[in-house]
C-alpha cells in the first residue's frame, strides 16, 4: 500500500504541475455549463401555461329531461371560466363557424340524449375539433366532465339500483358545500422539481469531466512508455499492477476533487440543486470514475502513444456524451444506443437525484452503472494479464 500511495501521490503532484490542470478543474466546466445552459435554455422551458377561454360552437338538439342538469353545468363558474358557448341551430353552422376561425371547438348534444341516458344508455356528446390543439384539449377536458359523470351515475344505477331521476351531473354542479370543483387546473411540476438547462448541463458536464479523468490516467500511462520511465519502473522491485493501481488511485482522487469542485461550484454559482440523496450522488460519481478508469486501463494497454490514447478516448467520450443526451436531448435509435453507455446511466441517474426521484428509481441506475464499471475493470485486468504493461 505504501508504494501504491506514493505512486498515486506523485501522480497527483505531477498533474498539478500542468498549467492546463487548473483551467480544466476550475474554469472549463463552469464556462461550458454556462454557455450550454444559456444557449439551449429554450429546450427546458417548464413554465405553466396560461389557459385561455375556448370559444365553443354549441348545438343542442336534445329537449329531454336532462336539460336542467345541462344548463346548470354550463352555468357553473368553473366551466364558464374555460368555455364560452355560442349557440348554433345546426351542426353545419357550428362547423362553418369553426372553419371560419370564429369558434375554437364545437359541441353537439344529439337528439334523444336525455331519453337515451334515462333508459340506461351510455351518455355521448359529439365534439368538433378546431385547429388549436391546446384549446381542443381544454374544451374536451372541461365538457367531458358532464358525460363522464353521467356515465358514472349510469354505472352506479346498473350496479346498485335506480336513483331518483332528475339531473345526472347536476348533483354536484349545484355546488353543494364541500363538493369538489368541476374543473381544477393543476401543475405537473407541483410537488416535484423541474430540470433547468443549467441543471441538465451541470449533470452532463460532470459525467463528461469524470470521463476525462480516465483519459488523463490513460495519457499518463502512455507517457510513461514514451518518456522511458516505464522501463526504469519495470526494472524496480515493484509489480506493474502496483504502478497501475497507484496511477488509477491518483487520477481517481483528482476526479473526486473535480466532482466536488463542480458540484459545490455549480451549486454556489448557478444555484444548481443536486438533490437530497447525497449517498446516491456520491455512488454515481464513484461508479463513473471507476468505469472511466477501466476504460483508461483498457485503452492504454493497446495504444502506444499518448496521442493515440487522446484520439481514441476523446472519440469515446464525445460519442457516449452525445448518445446519452449530454449535448442535447436525443430520442429514437440514439437514445437506445445510449442505454449501453456509462454516460447514460450516470447522467440519467444524476438527473433523477436532482429531481428528487425515489431512491429505488436511482438504485437501478446505480446497479447498471456499477455493473458496467466492474465489467470494464474485469476485462482490463484480463487484458493486462495477457499483454502486460511494459515499454
Amino acid at each position, binding site marked *: 500500500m505504501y*508504494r501504491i500511495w506514493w505512486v498515486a501521490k506523485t501522480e497527483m503532484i505531477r498533474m498539478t*504541475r500542468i498549467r492546463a490542470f487548473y483551467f480544466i478543474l476550475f474554469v472549463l466546466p463552469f464556462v461550458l455549463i454556462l454557455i450550454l445552459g444559456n444557449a439551449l435554455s429554450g429546450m427546458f422551458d417548464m413554465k405553466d401555461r396560461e389557459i385561455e377561454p375556448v370559444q365553443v360552437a354549441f348545438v343542442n338538439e336534445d329537449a329531454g329531461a336532462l336539460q336542467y342538469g345541462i344548463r346548470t353545468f354550463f352555468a357553473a363558474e368553473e366551466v364558464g371560466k374555460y368555455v364560452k358557448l355560442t349557440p348554433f341551430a345546426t351542426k353545419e353552422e357550428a362547423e362553418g363557424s369553426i372553419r371560419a376561425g370564429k369558434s375554437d371547438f364545437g359541441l353537439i348534444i344529439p337528439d334523444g340524449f336525455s331519453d337515451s341516458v334515462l333508459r340506461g344508455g351510455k351518455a355521448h356528446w359529439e365534439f368538433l375539433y378546431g385547429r388549436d390543439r391546446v384549446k381542443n384539449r381544454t374544451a374536451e377536458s372541461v365538457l367531458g366532465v358532464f358525460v363522464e359523470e353521467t356515465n358514472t351515475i349510469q354505472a352506479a344505477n346498473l350496479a346498485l339500483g335506480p336513483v331518483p331521476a332528475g339531473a345526472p351531473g347536476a348533483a354536484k354542479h349545484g355546488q353543494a358545500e364541500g363538493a369538489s370543483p368541476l374543473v381544477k387546473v393543476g401543475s405537473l411540476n407541483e410537488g416535484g422539481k423541474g430540470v433547468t438547462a443549467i441543471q441538465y448541463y451541470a449533470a452532463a458536464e460532470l459525467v463528461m469531466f469524470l470521463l476525462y479523468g480516465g483519459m488523463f490516467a490513460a495519457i499518463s500511462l502512455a507517457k510513461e512508455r514514451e*518518456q522511458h*520511465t516505464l522501463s*526504469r519502473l519495470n*526494472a524496480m522491485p*515493484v*509489480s506493474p499492477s502496483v504502478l497501475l493501481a497507484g496511477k488509477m488511485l491518483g487520477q481517481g482522487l483528482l476526479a473526486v476533487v473535480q466532482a466536488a469542485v463542480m458540484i459545490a461550484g455549480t451549486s454556489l454559482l448557478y444555484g444548481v440543486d443536486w438533490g437530497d440523496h447525497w449517498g446516491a450522488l456520491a455512488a454515481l460519481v464513484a461508479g463513473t470514475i471507476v468505469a472511466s478508469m477501466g476504460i483508461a486501463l483498457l485503452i492504454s494497454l493497446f495504444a502506444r502513444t499518448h496521442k493515440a490514447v487522446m484520439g481514441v478516448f476523446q472519440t469515446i467520450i464525445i460519442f457516449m456524451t452525445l448518445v446519452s443526451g449530454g449535448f442535447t436531448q436525443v430520442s429514437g435509435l440514439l437514445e437506445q444506443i445510449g442505454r449501453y453507455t456509462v454516460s447514460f446511466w450516470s447522467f440519467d441517474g444524476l438527473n433523477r437525484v436532482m429531481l428528487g426521484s425515489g431512491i429505488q428509481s436511482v438504485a437501478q441506475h446505480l446497479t447498471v452503472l456499477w455493473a458496467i464499471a466492474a465489467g470494464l475493470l474485469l476485462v482490463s485486468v484480463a487484458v493486462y494479464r495477457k499483454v502486460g504493461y511494459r515499454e
Partner: protein
Amino acid sequence: MSFVQVNDLVKRYGSHVSVDHLSFGIRKGEIFGLLGPNGAGKSTTIKMMCGLLKPDQGDIAIGGVSVRANPLEVKRKIGVVPQDLAIYEDLSARENVKFFARLYGLRGKELEERVTEALGFVGLLDRQNDRPGAYSGGMKRRLNIACAITHRPQLIIMDEPTVGIDPQSRNHILESVRTLNRMGSTIVYTTHYMEEVEAISTRIGILDHGRLIAEGTKEELVRQLAREEKLVIATDGVSPEAVEELRGHRQVERVDVEGNDITVYLQSASTYLQDILFILSNHQVRIRTLNRVEPDLETVFLALTGRTLRD
C-alpha cells in the same frame, strides 16, 4: 564463483536470433565492459538481466538468485541506468530521486539521507530543486544515474550512460562509476566509446551476433587477439612502386594509402622497421614523420568483428 552468471541465454524475435546461447560470468567487484556493434545483442542481454525481457532459453543468476524464478528479489539487488533518460520532467531532481527511492522501499530519515547522498554523488546537490528542463544534457544524465543508486545496489547496470554529453560530464560520470565500484558495487557497462571501456573496465566482453566472441582484461585481449602493429608514415609524396614493394614484403599484412600518408600493418613493427625504411628510401620517398601504433581494443574489435565499434 561469479556474482552474475549468464547461462546458455537465448532470445529470438521471430526468426531473428538476438541472443544466441550466450554464457559468461562477472565476478563481484568488477567493472565489466560489454562491447558490441549495433544489433550485437547488448541491449537485449541487459534487458534480460534487469528482468525487463524473459529469455526464451537459459537463465541469469545475480548474487545466486535466478532472474527467471525470483525477478523481484533480483531487482532489489540491481540499479539500472537506462540508455534513454528515464526521469520526470515535471518533478524536481530531488523529487525524481526520492520517488524512485521510495519504490525501492526507502523511508523516513534514511530516505532523505540517501537522496542527498545520491544527488551529492552526481554533483547535483546545489541544483536539486530545479526541474530537469533547466539542466544540460550532462546534468540530466547524472540525474539518470542518481535515480538508480539511492538503494546502494550490489549490481549497477549502465546502458550507454554517456551518450550525447560534453566531455566534462563524461569524465564526471566515468569517475562516478569508478567510485561506485570502489564502494563495492559490481558494474556492467555498455558503450559505443572504446576509450571509456579501456579507461574503466576491469574486464571486457565482446558481443557479436548474439554471441560472446572474446572475454578478458584489455591486456589479455590485446595480447591474444591483436597480432598486428601498424606504422603510420607521413611522406612528401607517395611512390606507387614503393607501395607495391611494401605490399610484397612477407611480413606486411596490409598497406593503406591516404594522400601522402602510408599505413603499414605488420606482425612486428620493431623487427621489420629497417626493411620498411629501406624500401621507401630506395624509391626516393622522403619521410616527414613516422609513428609506431601499438594494438588497442579497436584493433581487437576490428579483428574480431570486421567492423569498427560505431559501424
